[in-house]
C-alpha cells in the first residue's frame, strides 16, 4: 500500500515563526500536493509539484512556499506564520489518479 507520511499530527507555533511541514511518500510518485482544509471551505490547493525541483501554485499560495529536492519528499514552508494559517494541512501524492493522502497536520498559530 502507498504510504504518505506527514511529520507531525499536531503542531503549535507562534506568530512570525518560520514553520516547516514535511511530507514523505514511499511509492515513487511523480506528483505531490499540499492542501489546507478549513470548515465550510473544503480542501484548497496550496501548491503542487509534478517533478523534483518543479512546483506550481495552487489557489492559495500566498504566505507559503514549497521545496522538493528529492522525489519522495515535499515540504511546505510558512515563511512568517500568521493566525489565519491555523488549519489542517494535508499532503497527497499520485502518479495520475487517485491521490493518496497523509493523515494531516493540525497546525495552530498562536
Amino acid at each position, binding site marked *: 500500500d502507498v504510504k*504518505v507520511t506527514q511529520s507531525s499530527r499536531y503542531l503549535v507555533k507562534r506568530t512570525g515563526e518560520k514553520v516547516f511541514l514535511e511530507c514523505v511518500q514511499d511509492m515513487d510518485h511523480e506528483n505531490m*500536493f499540499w*492542501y489546507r482544509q478549513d470548515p*465550510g*471551505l*473544503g*480542501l484548497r*490547493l496550496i501548491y*503542487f509539484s509534478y517533478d523534483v525541483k518543479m512546483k506550481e501554485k*495552487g*489557489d492559495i499560495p500566498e504566505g507559503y512556499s514549497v521545496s522538493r529536492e528529492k522525489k519522495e519528499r515535499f515540504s511546505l514552508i510558512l515563511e512568517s506564520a500568521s493566525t489565519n494559517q491555523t488549519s489542517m494541512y*494535508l499532503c*497527497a501524492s499520485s502518479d495520475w*489518479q*487517485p*491521490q*493518496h*493522502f*497523509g*493523515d*494531516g497536520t*493540525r497546525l495552530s498559530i498562536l
Partner: protein
Amino acid sequence: SQQGEEDPQALSIQEGENATMNCSYKTSINNLQWYRQNSGRGLVHLILIRSNEREKHSGRLRVTLDTSKKSSSLLITASRAADTASYFCVNTGNQFYFGTGTSLTVIP
C-alpha cells in the same frame, strides 16, 4: 466554480439503513471519484467511475454517473457505525477541487 457540490451537507441514519449522497458539477464531468475522510484523518480513495460508465459497484458501495446532468450519487448499503465519515466527490478533470463533502453519521 470547479468544485463539486455534495448534497446533503449532513446525513444521520441508523445502522443497517442505506445512505445516499449526491454530487453535482457546473462543468462537464470527466471521470469522477469518491473519497472518504474519517474525523481528523486524511482522505481515502473509494471508487472511480469513468465518463462512459453509468453505474459501478464495489462491495457495499454503488456509484452512478449521469454526465448529461453533471451529477453522481454514492449509495452505501447496510451502513455500519464504521461508515461514519465525510464523503467527497472529485471530477478527475479538475482533480484539485474537492467540495466540502457530506458528513455521514451512522448511529449504532
